[in-house]
Structures are given as C-alpha cells and as structure tokens.
C-alpha cells in the first residue's frame, strides 16, 4: 500500500512540471438544487473548452476551480470570496443568476481581478455599474425579450400577459419586452424564485387565460421552464393563448419535455443570440464535441461558457501571461478568438455586440427535440444601457 501511494505521489509530481505556470479560472455556477442542470451544462462546456485547447492558454496550463452558488446570492458571494482570496484566481467567470452576480461583483472587482459573466446580464452591470475589468460573453437581460417584442409586433400581437420570476433578471426581462412591444400589457405576475421557487402556476395561468390576451410572454429558466410548459400544456391554452418565451424552452428543458411527450412545445418560437445550428467551424466543433461527450445538445448557457474560456485563453496567449493586467485587458477587449457565434466583438461596456435570432423547437434528423434558427431579428445589437456606462 505504501509503495502504491509513493508511486502515485511521484507520478502526480512528474505530471506537473515545476516550471509550468498556470492561469487560474474560478467558475461560479449552480451545482446543487433544482437548477443544477444548468450548472452541469456550463461545467461540461468549460471542460470541453479546456480539452479543445489542449489544457493550455499560450504556454500556460489552464486550471479551472468550480464553485457552487446554491442558487442563492449570499452563498454565491461567499464562494466568490473564497476564489478571490484563498485560491487567488486570475479570472472569476460563470454566474447564471443576475442577483448572484450583483451580490458577488464587488468582491472580484475590488480585488482587481477580471470578472466574466457567462450568462447573467443585469441592467446595472451594463450601465451605471460597468467596470473596466468586467466582461460578458452573454448579453444584457433586456436584449433577448426586446427581440421577442419585435417579433410579436411583426406577428400582429396586440395584447400580452406577462409572467416571470420575481428577481433581478425577471424584472429586466419584463422591462425588455415592454420596451419594444407596441401592444398592451394586460396583466403581469412575478412569482417566488430561488431555492424554494414557486413551480405550481395554476392561479397565474387561470388569470392569464381570463385576461383574454392575444399571447402569453414568459421567462422561466432551468427546471422551472419544463414545469411551466407542462402546466401550460395541461391547461390546454395552446390555441387560445399562444406562448412566447425567452430562456424557457432550451436544451435544458427540451429533453425532459420530450421524455414527458409534450408534443405541443414543438413549433413554439423564442429569441436567442445562439443556436446549435449556427453555421461556423467553432460552433460545429463545440456542438459535435459536446454531443459526443455528453450525449445530448448543449444549451446557450454552455455555449457562452465555452466562449468565455476561449476568450480567456486567447487573451492570456496574446498578453503573454497574466501579470500585465493592462495588456490582458486590451487583449480581452480585442476578443480575438473563434466564437461559437461566428464573429464576436465587445461594445464600449464590455458586453457583446451581436445578432439575435428567432428560434423554433423542432425534431432533428434523429428525432431528438432541439432548436433551429428561423429568422434574424437584430443585427449587431447594442444593449440599451451601454450609454450609461462610463469607465475610467
């Protein structure tokens, strides 16, 4: 036993050459609670990105430390503090939830580290609270629902009932659709969110139905999305109250909806900045690699996380390490990497300036439920808060 242990130690010592410096990335996501499915998707994509990079950013090894935010701002901040202070990471990336990001951002930025959101995009952080060391590989929350609002106008929808969870992103999402939608909002419900989120929407759906709106707009990410679609289906609202959603029907919820046989979700449309069918080399490599490794389609959460690792690696390589923060920041701003979205560029507030597509839930050639692009809604869209951002 002792020899075995000794061999193992020697082997592990040999595996890490003493001279190889590493770039440390802390990655905060949700690995417990019902929202862990999203975290899993992001974690898988990060690991895939590291694998595709051969574990290297330039000549430095990539080391990723994953932490669980337990779907709560307070614990998210706690693990962020740990990453910054104990692990002394160079980058903190991840964050699914807007409220978790808002609670954690100060810890990272005060320590003069780089913060890269791979999903959450609360309005504050794009505008007044923007920072030279903050970057995003996702979007500002309002953008996707704004695109949906445009689509609704085109479809001639005149009145809308709105439902979203009661937290930072839920409020941004409803504000986003209200920003572009020209018809009337006839009712709105904000439901309890977090680890003990409300998942039974009977009362709200009954209200929505009674409102006689032309359509129902919802935002229910993660497990809540699947639950919502099921109840929408069970209530038989498909013909009387068409569903328009953002971040609700996706690679997280579709496999479960397929298992449960809820055919009615096929054909429903929603907006997004990425899709597995986007035609570019990086995306093909990502989607195929992901399907091969994990047996199902990746989600936009994964795509954005994959991009974040690629972005970091490109910047570290260009800046020749992580010591010169200014060079690193400049390299990040250039965003010179092969994004799964095709071209990738940052706006003045370090959020991507990008296209938004209309997607539809379909069956692929193997009969697996997924999404495809049906239209481009926005080209090179800049979020509404960029003008409020001034970096010094």
């Amino acid at each position, binding site marked *: 036993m002792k020899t075995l242990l000794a061999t193992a130690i020697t082997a592990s010592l040999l595996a890490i050459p003493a001279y190889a410096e590493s770039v440390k990335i802390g990655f905060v996501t949700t690995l417990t609670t019902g929202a862990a499915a999203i975290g899993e998707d992001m974690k898988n994509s990060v690991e895939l990105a590291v694998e595709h990079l051969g574990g290297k950013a330039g000549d430095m090894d990539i080391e990723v430390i*994953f932490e669980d935010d337990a779907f709560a701002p307070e614990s998210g901040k706690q693990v962020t*503090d*740990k990453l910054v202070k*104990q692990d002394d990471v160079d980058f903190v990336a991840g964050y699914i939830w807007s409220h978790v990001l*808002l609670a954690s951002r*100060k810890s990272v930025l005060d320590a003069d580290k780089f913060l890269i959101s791979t999903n959450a995009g609360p309005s504050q952080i794009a505008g007044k609270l923007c920072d030279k060391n903050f970057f995003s590989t996702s979007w500002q929350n309002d953008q996707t629902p704004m695109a949906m609002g445009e689509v609704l106008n085109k479809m001639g929808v005149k009145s809308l009932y709105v439902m979203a969870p009661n*937290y930072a992103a839920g409020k941004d999402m409803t504000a986003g659709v209200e920003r572009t939608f020209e018809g009337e909002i006839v009712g709105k419900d904000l439901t309890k969110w977090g680890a003990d989120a409300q998942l039974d929407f009977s009362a709200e759906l009954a209200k929505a139905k009674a409102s006689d709106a032309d359509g129902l707009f919802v935002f229910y990410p993660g497990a809540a999305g699947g639950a919502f679609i099921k109840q929408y289906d069970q209530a038989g609202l498909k013909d009387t109250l068409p569903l328009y959603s953002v971040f609700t029907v996706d690679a997280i919820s579709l496999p479960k909806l397929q298992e449960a046989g809820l055919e009615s979700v096929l054909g429903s449309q929603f907006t997004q900045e990425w899709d597995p069918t986007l035609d570019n080399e990086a995306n093909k490599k990502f989607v195929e690699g992901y399907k091969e490794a994990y047996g199902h389609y990746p989600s936009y959460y994964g795509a954005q996380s994959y991009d974040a690792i690629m972005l970091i690696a490109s910047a570290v390589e260009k800046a020749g390490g992580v010591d010169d923060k200014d060079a690193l920041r400049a390299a990040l701003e250039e965003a010179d990497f092969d994004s799964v979205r095709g071209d990738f560029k940052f706006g003045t507030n370090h959020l991507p300036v990008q296209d938004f597509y209309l997607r539809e839930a379909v069956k692929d050639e193997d009969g697996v439920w997924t999404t495809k692009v049906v239209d481009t809604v926005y080209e090179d869209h800049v979020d509404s808060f960029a003008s409020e951002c001034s970096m010094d």
Partner: protein
Amino acid sequence: MTMLRGRGWITAIIMILLAVLPPIFVATGNAFWLDLATRLVILAIAAVSLNLILGYGGLVSFGHAALLGIGAYAVGIPAHHWLYGGGPEWLQTTSGWLQFPLAILAAALFALVTGAICLRTRGVYFIMITMAFAQMMYYLIVSIEEYGGDDGLVIDQRSELPFVDFSDPLQQYFFCFVSLVIVLLLVRMIVNSRFGMVLQGAKGNEERMRTLGYNVYAYRLTAYVISGAMCGFAGALLGNFTTFISPEMMDWQRSGELMFMVILGGASTTVGPVLGAVVFIVLEHLLSSLPEPLGVYWHLPFGLLLIIVVLFVRGGLTTLLTRRGDR
C-alpha cells in the same frame, strides 16, 4: 484558578486561538481564513445570544436568524439611502453611531413585540411561533422592492466609526473579536446574577419560581429582549462583513444552523456556543471544499454528523471534552 479547571481550559484555548491565529493568517497571506474567522466570530456572538434564552432560559427560539437579518438591514438601509437618497434625512448615513444603535434597538424592539406574544406559549408551540414571526420578517423584506426584495442589497459603504476601519479586514476582525469577549462576559454576568438564577430556576421548575413570587413572564421577556439586542448587534457586524444582505439570511434553515451551533458546543455553558460555531464553520468549509465530486455532496456527512451529535453527544462538545476533568 477555578476558572481553569473543567471548562475553563476550553474557554482559554478557544479564545487564545481566536486572538492569535487571525494575525498569522494575514501574515502568511491566507486572507480567506481571516474571512472565515470573522464570519465565525460574528456567528458565535449570535449563537451566544441565542444560548442565553435557549440554554439558560429553556426557550427554544427557532427564529433567531430574523434578528440577525434585522441588524444587517439596519446597516444596509441607511447606507442605501445615503448613496441613493430617499427615506428620512436622519437615516441617510453611514455613521456607525447611528447604524449600530439602530440595529440593537430594532432587534430589541422586534424581540419585545414578538416575545410578548411568543412567551404566552410553551414547548413546541414556542418553537413554531418564533419561526412564524421570523418567516413574517423574511417575507416582509422580500416584499420591499426598494431594498432589493429577494435579490438582496449590496452595502456599498461600510459603517464608519472613529476607532475602527471596517474596510481593513484585520481591524474588522478584532472589533468583532472584542465584541465577542464583551458579549461573553455580559452573558456570564447575567447568568450569575440574581436575574440569571431566576431565569435558570424557571427553566427547571416554573411553578416553584412563581410561588416564590417571581414574575417569570417578565424575567423571560427581559432575557428575550437582551438576547435579541445582542443578536441584532451581531447582525450589524455581519452586514459590514459580507457587504451584502438578503432575506435568505433570515430563513428558517439559518435559525436551525444557529440552534445547531449552540447544541453542538453545549447549551449549558457560556462558551459552548463559541466552540459550536468554530466547529460548525470550519467543518462546513472543509467539507464543502473537498475535491470534486465530493464537495457537492458535503451536506451528506454534515447531516449525518448533526444526527449523530444529537443522538450520542448529549450536552455537546464541551461536556464531551470536559467529562473526565469534571467528574
């Protein structure tokens, strides 16, 4: 030297470690361990305050986290108005001279009002009614959009006091540590006073105390308010430490954690809850930072430990450690 026999040596060891280790953490560049120590000391204050009514008064409060939250919001709300305006003018401040007394008074007031009602009940009903009031407070905060609701509130500016700089981690730590020492001495004084004797007597035999002419209800309410005030103070420290507060910290599960700290360390001693907080926080950290994929499942050993402690370690760790010395 009677102090150092039996439980005394535990007190001495813990307090010396708490005084000596943090500067070493800083000197060796382990800032995170200093953070851990700060959190630990603050929660220890809350646990000690809970123990005053739980251990000595026999009043099992399942809502103490609400008091912690009230204290934290008493720092957060003035700081919020100071930065973004709104609210009455006297509230727009980051001065600790306003925030700390506000935290103590608000928590004491909450304890007075709820305690007056809760103390009409006994046993498990008391456990449930204290939890009910904490849940009310939780949902009240959730409903106030201005202070972030469910999303919580970032404290952009810590409290300002002339003799301590809260943005310096070590100064902050020692302020918390000294507070803990004062609170411990205070609780010890209360427990050993005639007041404390009545409180403990009522725990054992309420009728007897009543026939002796004591107004047990008034004694208990006073203890409840003192405990609330201390916990509110701990909350103000916690708000300054985390610089982020959310209704989450008032959740019933947090109250359960505070209770666990008290029971783990030993409810019959002044210093027990401190030991409980130390073990709780250190264990929580060690288990949750186990290598993947074990870290994600850290609640499993933690839950088992909780069950085992309750089933087999009666009287808490303090009793366990001193069994030989004492008997």
